[in-house]
């Protein structure tokens, strides 16, 4: 489990996250929802140790964040973070070089599934293909948890469908996933838990199935209640 325990982050006088507390369970897909500037990306970066927090704790399977984090948690940022001059092949080699838990077979499978060409340069990839490569670099790691920041942002419908189909495959099955997205309607049927952020605070946290059964509401309905009361 990833435990976010009263995490607060300030940039100067501005508080971006305030006492954020929730959990991400293994084998479940948790969606972090919020309007622009709510602090979603900041929180993901904080979990990944890419940003120090002002207060609070983050624990992965009971252990505080350390250099061993990256063997357990993979991060798919909102943009492809590989140098433009590299080829797809170079990127895969980079991951192979530095990650013991890089799964070569899965990478080859995803390469073929996403129809990516190894010789293509990063700079020449379309937005959709860049997003797919980005996802490949995260999914091909054998990690217990996967964090994704806006995996569907700005890409075409067909690429989105392809990416969404990965969520139902065994590639995601046993992992704990935390993702942020604006396209809730596309993946609402996939997510297990929703955490709603507003101005850096957790407003609501709920299991989607429970809300549907008990209150007959969808995630979108709850969002309307929270953000447009």
């Amino acid at each position: 489990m990833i435990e976010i325990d009263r995490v607060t982050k300030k940039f100067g006088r501005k508080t971006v996250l305030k006492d954020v507390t929730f959990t991400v369970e293994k084998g479940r897909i948790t969606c972090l929802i919020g309007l622009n500037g709510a602090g979603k990306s900041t929180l993901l970066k904080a979990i990944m140790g890419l940003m120090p927090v002002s207060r609070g704790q983050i624990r992965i399977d009971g252990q505080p964040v350390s250099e061993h984090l990256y063997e357990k948690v993979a991060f798919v940022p909102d943009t492809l973070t590989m140098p433009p001059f590299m080829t797809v092949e170079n990127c895969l080699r980079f991951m192979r070089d530095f990650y013991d838990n890089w799964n070569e077979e899965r990478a080859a499978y995803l390469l073929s599934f996403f129809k990516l060409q190894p010789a293509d340069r990063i700079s020449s990839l379309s937005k959709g293909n860049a997003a797919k490569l980005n996802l490949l670099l995260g999914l091909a790691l054998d990690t217990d948890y996967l964090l994704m920041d806006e995996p569907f942002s700005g890409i075409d419908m067909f690429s989105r469908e392809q990416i969404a189909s990965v969520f139902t495959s065994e590639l995601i099955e046993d992992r704990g996933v935390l993702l942020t997205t604006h396209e809730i309607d596309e993946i609402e049927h996939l997510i297990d838990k929703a955490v709603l952020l507003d101005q850096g605070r957790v407003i609501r946290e709920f299991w989607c199935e429970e809300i549907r059964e008990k209150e007959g509401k969808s995630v979108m309905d709850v969002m309307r209640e929270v953000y447009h009361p």
Partner: protein
Amino acid sequence: MIRYIKLVLMELHRFWKIYAALAAITVISQTAGLWMSIRSHIKRVHWEMELTSIGTYAEFAKTYGRTSFRSIVSFNELFFMGPVMICIAVLLIYVFLIWYRDWYGKNAFVYRLLMLPASRFRLFWAKLTAIMLFVLGLVALQIVLLPLLMAMYRQMMPAELSLAESVFSYVRHHIVFQILLPPHAADFFLYYGLGFVAVTVVFAAILMERAWRLKGLIAGILYVSAATLVMTFPLSLDYVLYPHEIWGLMGGIGLVLFLASVWISRTLLAKKITV
């Protein structure tokens, strides 16, 4: 260790095109400059010989003296020193860019680098190693190039007009090369050791800026300034300390600065760096 080597290789690979260009500029400019200087000098000699009815080179040398490699190079010093200055400038800039290019640019590669498993500190060492290899690589190139250029000089200049000198004599009497290529081993390690310490100090300042942005920039500038002051301060104590004591003190301060910079960098990379 293997991962560190891989990181070093990656850093080397990222810069190799510019580096190769610097090496090529150096070789071409110095060779061409020397060739042009020798050719034009021989032309001038012929012209003078005709004017003054001197029949042989030997006679000419008796009247006007011989021309050393050093003098020949000085006729077109810009071709010689120009590329050296360019290399120094580019590498100085790259001391900063080796970090900043990871943050800026279309895809922030720094995400990847900071998420590599095991210690981020390896990143620091890899970049430091890469910078030192780039610097020493160009030094080695110049070391190899100089005797080749001297051989070219001996080949092209008539024997009666040339004046023998060794590479080491030339270097010892050259205002720039005596610092860049000191033939004395202790001096070589001193200069490049100091450079090594200076780069670690700058790296620490860069990481301060990356951790704390504007406040970090101020802290970094203050850190570099303080390091410079502290390092040079013993030189002002020549009225109370003997030279060997000043030297020892500077050595100690250099070591402390190095260790402090390494510790600061390590701490910032592990806990404070912000993407």
